[in-house]
């Protein structure tokens, strides 16, 4: 008789539903309960690098903004290190590299402030262009969607990025590239995420 493989099976995902804010951002649901909510400060005060703002909309297959979405951000610091034992090196005190944002219930706008990350090692000695890792959950999304945000002022690094180059359809790569602008003299990157349709954002099975 052959031996059985005694692995456990991953717990199945379910949608975060319409009231995800109660659990993960109770202030937005309309009540204060915790001493501190988690995820509002991604980089901390001591982080080196350029301070940037990122903002956008999540848009559904009908072209409407999704107003009940929650996005988590995971990023390296300006030196390309993640705040993790296997993250490649030390990070500044207070740099968590993780954040959580929700949309404005009326407009669907979301935004967050952080520092621009540095390049991170890729596989087989390659170098990945600076990027933010995003995870998107909402009502109607059965399994959280993973995507990446790259920066349009990093065109040389983007052209050599192993993940962008993995996308066979060149005309889909720009869906991952945020556009730099200025707002009150400060750098802001615009990144709209299209869940479905003509401009559908590339999502990853990571």
């Amino acid at each position, binding site marked *: 008789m052959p031996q059985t493989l*005694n*692995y*456990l*099976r*991953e*717990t*199945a*995902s*379910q*949608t*975060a*539903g*319409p*009231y*995800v804010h*109660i*659990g*993960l951002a*109770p202030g937005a649901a*309309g009540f204060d*309960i*915790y001493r*501190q909510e*988690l995820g509002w400060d991604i980089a901390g005060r001591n982080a080196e690098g350029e301070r940037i703002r990122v903002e956008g909309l999540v848009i559904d*297959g009908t072209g409407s903004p999704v107003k009940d979405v929650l996005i988590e951000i*995971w990023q*390296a610091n300006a030196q390309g290190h993640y*705040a*993790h034992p*296997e*993250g490649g090196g030390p990070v500044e005190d207070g740099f968590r590299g993780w954040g959580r944002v929700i949309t404005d*219930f009326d407009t669907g706008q979301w935004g967050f402030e952080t520092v621009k990350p540095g390049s*991170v*090692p890729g*596989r*087989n000695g390659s170098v*990945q262009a600076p990027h933010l*890792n995003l*995870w998107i*959950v*909402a009502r*109607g*999304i*059965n*399994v*959280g*969607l*993973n995507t*990446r945000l790259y920066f349009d002022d990093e065109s040389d690094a983007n052209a050599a990025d192993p*993940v962008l180059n*993995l996308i066979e359809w060149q005309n*889909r790569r720009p869906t991952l590239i945020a556009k730099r602008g200025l707002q009150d003299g400060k750098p802001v990157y615009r990144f709209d995420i299209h*869940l*479905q*349709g003509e401009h559908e954002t*590339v*999502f*990853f*099975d*990571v």
Partner: protein
Amino acid sequence: MRQPAEYYQRDRTLHPPAYTPGYKTSVARSPRQALISLENTASEITGPRFGHGDIDPGDNDLISNYARPGESPIGERIILHGRVLDENARPLPRTLVEIWQANAGGRYRHRKDTYLAPIDPNFGGCGRTLTDENGYFFFRTVKPGAYPWRNMVNNWRPAHIHVSVFGAAFVQRLITQCYFEGDPLIPICPIVQTIPDPQAIEQLVAKLDLNATIPLDSIAYKFDIVLRGRRSTLFENRLEGN
């Protein structure tokens, strides 16, 4: 540079697909293009870590964390407990588990919930905790009620608690829902039924746990959570994941 030990590929046949028209909201919110598969890099095998400075000791007690002094919420007092493990059956210590739920009448404390069942003045409906060194966690709460939702005209969600877990890597990130043993709404719920695999649904159903029940106080349900496992890298000494 050394290649990081990878996480097992997610078995997408046990997870719900994106497009599940019985759950209507998924129709316009599901990508139509195939996901692009990525091999793990530092961006995938790392993830945020949390400590006891981030949360407070009473955050896992929903019976007291929003109650007025001397009062408590109305409903069936329960303990929800279990372990967070990976697919290799290794416990995941010090990982953040967050939950949220409706009150005993199926009403959420959320400005967007307009269901006519009343708010409970002593119940907030959220909690969070870190697993201990054995991956163990517990919450005290009241059992949530079923509630109606606008999908088809007469759809009711089974009693459920939303559960969010981190693990050690961003690729282990998971949000799911915990249901309760014996609930007849489970097999007819369009959201539950987005999951194609009956065994995977069964794994979302918390079991009555008399051994953990506190006599004359609270009944208990056990809910173990399994996150993705990690490959061993042969012939290398690793500090973590092995």
